[in-house]
């Protein structure tokens, strides 16, 4: 599964994107955010306030309860500031 990061989430994690194999127990967006925080200090720093992290699965906004199954690309980013 591909993870893709934007703005300060990208900067703090230090990667634009990465491909990961998720453990079987990671079933929802919330699970994914918790699991990523165990992967090191940079992830912990990027995701320390999971409530503010916005998530898109296959380029559609989803909330943190969304299930991951079938997802190809999951994007994590801060609240948007376009317009």
């Amino acid at each position: 599964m591909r993870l893709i990061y934007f703005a300060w989430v990208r900067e703090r994690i230090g990667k634009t994107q990465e491909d990961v194999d998720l453990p079987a127990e990671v079933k929802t967006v919330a699970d994914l955010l918790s699991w990523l925080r165990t992967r090191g200090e940079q992830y912990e720093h990027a995701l320390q306030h999971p409530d503010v992290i916005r998530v898109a699965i296959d380029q559609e906004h989803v909330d943190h309860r969304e299930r991951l199954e079938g997802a190809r690309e999951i994007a994590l980013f801060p609240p948007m500031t376009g317009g």
Partner: protein
Amino acid sequence: MAPVVPVVRVQPGDFDMAGEVEALTAGRTDIGAVVTFLGMCRDEEGRLSALELEHYPGMAEGEISRVAHEALARWPLQGLTVIHRYGRIAPGENIVLVACASTHRRAAFEAADFLMDYLKSRAPFWKKEFGVDGREGEWVEARESDERAAERWQR
């Protein structure tokens, strides 16, 4: 009447507001009102030398299209254009254009207002500030008031 196809573009380069309005109205005699919103880069009282707009390619176009089709479903529009730039943008330059054409002025106003509120809350763009010394500054923080503005349109 043929269904309205919104014009949606996400691009690094500038756009031509007059040309876009002309494209919406050329040869037509059924449009009574065109409302445009032009968003520009400010220098925040001389503090900034530029904004860098990051975006999520593909999703940015997708979300803007979704919002455009929602506007078409809610208001009787005869044409609709949304253009959003990304990349480095200097103060005084254009960032975003929304143009809505309708027979009636209220529809054109409301649809443009709605589109801007929804773009702010749904289109995946992020602004980073660059100071006048050329150094990278902070990411612009999302404002609670923008979130509330978008909620006005929920029904």
